[in-house]
């Protein structure tokens, strides 16, 4: 702690799920008291159970709870917190909310509202970047107006084009459009999604660059003009324009390019007057040209891979910076060791076009062991509500190199048991085993290119049917109450010859 600064003592986490749990964990280590907020349907969510205090803030629809700025500020005042941590999504990148916090004398654990307004408005942000000679993808310089304007720009930059929400991220409101026929509906759908997700329907259009890699740089900026980057993350594996697997380091960067992109990221951050943790997103094309995409003005879903490879606790840094601390980390102290991969576990049905698929988690068993981290917001018996982002948890591995990390995440995914709802685990296993992934041939079209006709392996269906039938047939008498029970039938006990040889188990 620097002298003269006052560390945050109590914080309200204006979020839910795994990121609320993640933030609360760091707070416990920093002796910061936590207030969780929850909508009525989240009363039994994990984040409400582990916080020091939990306050109900309204009905399930996010606009009536997690997006209700005035109620959140009021709750913050009532519970006597110094600060609000917005997590990601919801109000994390809402400059109006950051401003309301500032006005109420509550620290917003994120960027200052002015910088947030600038980087949050992608069109404004692009203009600023253009002024400072940051490379950009060709497209609209401002929010699109009527459909004619969209059609003209699309013709100018050439199809395919991308429709994007001016506010927010995560692929919401984003639409790729292959020809003019599809354009009008895509703009309308993008606007509706943008409205519903971010409360603002502004969208714009740009050239869609095919086969690019998504490379982003983590940055930290304190309130004294010090900016460092904490290296890159590659997030090229996406479905529905949402990242599903991320890794660091990227196989596409060498030290020279890494340094150049890192310095550009820092320049972008300095240009915008940005503070706290943020991420500068780039597209990298086949010829290793990179284009600035946007600044993600929040802690990212994929932040743990950076933490595992650099040893920096990003949430802790957020709190230190928000408390008014100077950065004690120097650029030259930050280095990458080993390789980290994250796989996102969503409640979704891979076979049905990744449709969200809520339900009850009947059994949860998370993987353990060397190099494995699970950031999770779920537990056995919990019912995943339909109202929010379907992310359940994140599996993150570290290995001494990429090869080890890939092997490790494959094994860990196989040991990640979630029963009762569909998740992409079988799909994720097949991605990390895919020869193109193993080779590092990862572009944002990876899924459509390599996994388009993916079907789950059904080799073990017979085993499943056998297990189901045996489970029905040997239904165990209920001893105790719902506890794990062991029954070995007489015959089985007798049959276990000392030389019983058990066949291959894990390699089918």
């Amino acid at each position, binding site marked *: 702690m620097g002298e003269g600064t006052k560390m945050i003592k109590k914080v309200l986490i204006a979020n839910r799920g795994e990121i609320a749990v993640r933030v609360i964990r760091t707070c416990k280590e920093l002796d910061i008291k936590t207030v969780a907020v929850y909508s009525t349907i989240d009363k039994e969510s994990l984040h409400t159970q582990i916080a020091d205090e939990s306050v109900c803030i309204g009905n399930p629809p996010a606009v009536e709870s997690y997006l209700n700025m005035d109620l959140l500020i009021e709750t913050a005042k009532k519970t006597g917190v110094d600060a609000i941590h917005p997590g990601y999504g919801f109000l994390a990148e809402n400059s109006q909310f950051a401003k309301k916090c500032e006005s109420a004398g509550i620290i917003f654990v994120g960027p200052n509202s002015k910088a947030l307004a600038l980087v949050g408005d992608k069109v404004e942000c692009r203009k600023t970047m253009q002024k400072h000679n940051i490379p950009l993808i060709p497209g609209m310089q401002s929010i699109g107006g009527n459909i004619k304007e969209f059609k003209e720009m699309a013709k100018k930059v050439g199809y395919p084009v991308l429709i994007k929400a001016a506010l927010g991220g995560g692929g*919401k409101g984003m639409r790729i459009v292959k020809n003019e026929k599809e354009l009008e509906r895509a703009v309308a759908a993008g606007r509706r999604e943008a409205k519903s997700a971010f409360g603002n329907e502004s969208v714009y259009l740009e050239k869609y660059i095919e086969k690019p890699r998504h490379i982003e740089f983590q940055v930290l900026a304190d309130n004294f003009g010090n900016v460092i980057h904490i290296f890159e993350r590659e997030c090229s594996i996406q479905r529905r324009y949402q990242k599903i697997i991320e890794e660091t380091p990227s196989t596409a960067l060498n030290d020279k390019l890494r340094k150049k992109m890192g310095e550009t990221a820092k320049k972008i951050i300095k240009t915008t007057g940005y503070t706290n943790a943020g991420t500068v997103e780039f597209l990298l094309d086949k010829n290793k040209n990179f284009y600035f995409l946007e600044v993600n003005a929040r802690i990212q879903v994929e932040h743990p891979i950076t933490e595992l490879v650099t040893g920096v606790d990003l949430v802790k840094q957020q709190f230190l910076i928000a408390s008014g601390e100077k950065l004690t980390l120097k650029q030259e102290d930050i280095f990458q060791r080993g390789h980290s991969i994250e796989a996102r576990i969503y409640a979704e049905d891979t076979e049905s076009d990744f449709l969200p698929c809520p339900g009850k988690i009947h059994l949860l068993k998370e993987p353990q062991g060397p190099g494995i981290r699970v950031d999770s917001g779920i537990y056995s018996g919990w019912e995943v509500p339909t109202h929010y982002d379907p992310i359940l948890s994140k599996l993150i591995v570290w290995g001494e190199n990429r090869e080890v990390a890939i092997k490790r995440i494959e094994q860990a995914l196989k040991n990640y048991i979630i029963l009762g709802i569909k998740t992409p685990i*079988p799909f994720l296993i097949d991605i990390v085993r895919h020869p193109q992934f193993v080779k590092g041939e990862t572009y944002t079209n990876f899924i459509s290119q390599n996994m388009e006709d993916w079907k789950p392996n059904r080799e073990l269906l*017979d085993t499943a049917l056998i297990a*189901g039938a045996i489970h029905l047939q040997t239904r165990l008498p209920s001893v105790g109450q719902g506890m794990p*029970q*062991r029954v070995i039938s007489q015959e089985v006990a007798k049959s276990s010859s000392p030389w019983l040889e058990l066949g291959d188990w894990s390699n089918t």
Partner: protein
Amino acid sequence: MEHRFIHSGETYKVTIEPKENSHEVTIDDKQPLQVEVVSAFTNSLSLLINGKIKTVYLAEDKQKKYLSIDGNYFELELEKGRTAKRGRVGLKEGNVVCSPMPGSVVKIFVSEGNEVKEGQVLTIVEAMKMENELKSPIKGKVKKVNFSEGEQVDALQPIVELEAL
């Protein structure tokens, strides 16, 4: 003893004959398999099937058994549950468009009597903050629209009913 499970719309017949030290299990008309239960807990089974051991994690509710085996996930419906699931069967058969998950109907593009093409977007349902377009599985005519825009819809409730043309 015979059990019937539905998996991805297909019905499977599983017959178990207890033997002295094991079970003989027959799936449909395939070769019978020798299965020994190595261990059985409430939520996991270790099975020795024709000399190979498999650990299966499983749970159940009234409709289904949920299983995970070496990274593979299966949902098995008990056959008696079938009638309750008409909606899904209807969806499969191509004459009803159901929401695959609970959500709210954002947009309905058709009304009774409209002719629709295969693949045409009929309605948009929002769930878990994502918009999902539901398309027509067939070329046909709209027989009935059961919801209006803004209404909540449960999983597998038919939103649009169709007639093949």
